[in-house]
């Protein structure tokens, strides 16, 4: 078999799954971009809140309803705060926030399986370069670093277990994994030990820093730099213990977001954004309703609608929406065809992604499906287009959009895709 014509000799050096597992720490943090740009981005106060609805949210019962059609299902479409744009009746509160949102209805992606599809979407499904690309959160953590708050740049609020999840980081290396907060609970050992006062703790850190400084003189610096970085982030987290103190949450917030899991987690997401976490991901599971979908979605979409609308409203009220990019994402949509156990199966062919916030149009719908909602009518957009769009909305300069991997540039998103200009403001 002949080599791919795209194959260039220096790319062979990259042909590894975990190439920079070493390099990321060894060659120092922030080595991906030229120092000047890295500094600019660090000063940039833009953030991301990504809501992942695992299993595939049905676009026909949410962002792209087709009432009274063969595949439209039982629900109605309702008007929104933007005349001419309708959403499914299952998102009544979100409909009132439509003037903040931008919806892309022409999403067409490649994979209809969960096992591969989830990772492909999260990674932007770039061209195969022989490396495992990072998830969006790890990418942003690397490209933009933490904000001034010093909090970990990538925090993941999820049901189940927490911990440091390194898988997301791909070739960037474990330092760019997610700090996962299981059920929004604090990470292990966050609370300073009862035997230590905060003065004790400070004293210890000062001594440690002094010792490290001395040790780092005339030595290769990577290990000291790595320790400094993780302790600083740990410290920043400890200073914000109040984020995990439930008494700090107002009754009004609890009522508006709801006491159900996604409600609590989205509220935590908002608070983490307010605290200055660069990239917050909130996961919700069990959206994969192959059967009895019209009862499932009635339940689940409302569990999403209530806190999501509250979130958008709050971010807008606090003037955060100008600087925060909000994304609602799944691995695919759901089939127009309704199956014999009253459900919808997986449908990457034509689905929707909703978003809001910095750099994006407000109250906009871009792209369309045909009258039946089966396929895209007009220009199709893959997840690569969305990645380019989001990076641009975040102010990551177009011509510096590269990962440097041992001197070899890698594009941050699929090279054949580009930003969707109609979505950008």
């Amino acid at each position: 078999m002949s080599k791919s014509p795209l194959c260039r000799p220096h790319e062979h050096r990259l042909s590894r799954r975990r190439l920079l597992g070493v390099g990321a720490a060894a060659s120092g943090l922030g080595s991906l971009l030229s120092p000047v740009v890295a500094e600019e981005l660090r000063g940039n106060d833009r953030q991301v809140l990504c809501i992942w609805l695992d299993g595939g949210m049905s676009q026909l019962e949410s962002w792209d309803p087709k009432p009274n059609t063969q595949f439209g299902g039982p629900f109605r479409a309702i008007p929104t705060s933007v005349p001419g744009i309708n959403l499914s009746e299952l998102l009544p509160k979100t409909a009132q926030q439509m003037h903040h949102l931008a919806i892309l209805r022409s999403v067409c992606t490649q994979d209809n399986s969960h096992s591969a599809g989830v990772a492909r979407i999260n990674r932007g499904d770039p061209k195969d370069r022989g490396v495992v690309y990072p998830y969006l959160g790890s990418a942003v953590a690397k490209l933009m670093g933490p904000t001034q708050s010093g909090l970990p740049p990538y925090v993941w609020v999820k049901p189940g277990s927490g911990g440091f999840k390194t898988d997301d980081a791909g070739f960037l290396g474990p330092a760019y994994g997610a700090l996962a907060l299981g059920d929004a609970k604090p990470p292990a050992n966050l609370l300073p030990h009862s035997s230590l006062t905060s003065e004790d703790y400070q004293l210890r850190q000062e001594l440690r820093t002094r010792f490290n400084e001395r040790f780092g003189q005339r030595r290769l610096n990577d290990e000291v730099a790595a320790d400094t970085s993780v302790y600083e982030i740990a410290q920043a987290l400890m200073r914000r213990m109040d984020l995990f103190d439930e008494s700090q949450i107002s009754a009004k917030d609890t009522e508006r977001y709801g006491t159900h899991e996604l409600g609590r987690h989205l509220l935590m997401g908002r608070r983490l954004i307010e605290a200055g976490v660069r990239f917050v991901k909130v996961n919700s599971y069990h959206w994969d309703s192959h059967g009895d979908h019209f009862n499932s979605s009635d339940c689940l979409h409302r569990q999403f609608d209530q806190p999501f609308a509250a979130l958008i409203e709050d971010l807008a009220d606090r003037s955060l929406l100008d600087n925060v990019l909000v994304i609602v994402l799944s691995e695919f949509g759901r089939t127009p065809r309704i199956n014999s156990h009253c459900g919808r199966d997986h449908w990457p062919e034509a689905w929707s992604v909703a978003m809001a916030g910095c750099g994006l149009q407000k109250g906009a719908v871009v792209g369309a499906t045909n009258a039946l909602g089966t396929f895209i009518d007009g220009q199709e957009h893959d997840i690569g287009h969305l990645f380019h769009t989001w990076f641009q909305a975040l102010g990551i300069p177009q011509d510096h959009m590269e990962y440097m991997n041992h001197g070899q540039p890698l594009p941050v998103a699929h090279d054949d895709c580009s930003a969707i200009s109609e979505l950008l403001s």
Partner: protein
Amino acid sequence: MGRRGSLLFRLQLLWLLLLLFAPRCGAEGVPLHQRLDEIIARKESAGAQTAIADDAEFLRRVWLDLAGKIPSAEATRAFLADSAADKRTRTIDDLLVAPTYTKHMQQAFHVMLMERRGDNEYWQKFLQAAFTKNKPWDSMVQAMLEPQPSQDDHQGASFFLTQRLEKYGQNPVDHPGLTRDIGRLFLGVDLQCAQCHDHLFVADYKQLDFQGLLAVTQTLKPGKADPGPLVSEQPMTAKLEFVSVFDPTPHATGPRIPWGKEFEIPQDLPKDNTYSPLALVANGLPSADNPRFSRNIANRIWHLMLGRGLVEPLDSHHADNPPTHPELLELLAAEIAEHQFDLKWLFREIALSDTYQRSSRWPDADMQNVEQQQYNVAIPRRLSAEQTLDSFVQAIAGSTPETAQAEIVSRLKPLFVAALASPAREHEDHRHPSVQSALFFANDGDLLAAMKRQPGNLVDRLVSIKDDVLLADELYLAIVSRLASDQERTELISFLAEQTDQREARLLHWMWAMLASTEFHVNH
């Protein structure tokens, strides 16, 4: 002592005799460690290298590499005071026959080979016996791959295979993963991307290399333990067919060692079940005739000692990813093969070299000429979870009875592993701190409690030392295996003087900061 003890003693004696009398030179009679230094020196820019590490630096490093933990304060003191010219060589030799060598290698190879997938008592026994007896590497790999233990001390080695033949979660048995790991760990090649087609970027890795080995592994299942883990094989009676996703031409292969010859499948399978492709692989793959096999282990041992493989990543040997020192890799590979894959011999030769004994501190503040890849300075490398734990216990409780220390180790082990180790199925070739480990060290109750004053432990002894010099030295020797500098001593004393009624608490602060410092967590 008994039979077992005297056997051990005889083995150690034999080893020492071999050291004294057996030829340990390369072809020209020059020791390997000298030849490797020459090759390294040739590539370095003139004059741009750092000095050899001082005694404290050397001792700590060689203990961590050959014993898996820092030396005791006592051992360091003794070494620093020793004026013998050959003390370094003697230390190396002592460490190579000490029980700590076996314990450390058992642990390090367990993590390298199993990647935290789980454990098994027979597997541990196999590793322990192997390193105690200095079993040759090719024989170890044969033990891991063969269908039945061909020797008593091969019991348990099949865990390498059987643990990878279990399902985890909802995934089916990962035969391709097992195939890939045999390539990665024993041949230094990652054939993952050659499963479905010739590797897109690496010309050397062909689909045939993957599929030929898969033809062997996919017939394996975990067998019934008796008593150690055993593998069960149902050899294929026909060739494995495969097709590239890019090219519909069908291919077929019988069992095959990657880059080796294909084994013929007999027309009629012998009734006595003597046809075993797995046995053919177990006998053929780990061999001096297999240059990839030799290069892989040479590179991995080099990496264990120097912190960086001559080929990086360690499972990425191919024509377009050349070693930093091709001549050196060939030399090490040839020599280890010639020495019957005697790992201890190679560890020793590397430890004796100037390259290994180089300081990690650069002579001047200007670090411009540092070339990590040319080894003109020692590369600091982070300790493993186990090295960190064992060193931590050595530091805070090294002067207490063995049983007390063992108790602390077993109590803290799961915590250290949770905080510092990689997740299962990921290699730990290079390690990093994390926010999790930082929070663990800062705030974990069990860890902090272990440091507190107990009869005979470090802080207990320090509290009663009145002399400033003795205090500082005892503290620094215990934790960072060196004497305190004048400045460090002065700072410590004035720190303690700030609150004389809080001496113990203040000592604990200082101790914590040292135990949390990069200097402690890194082999430098």
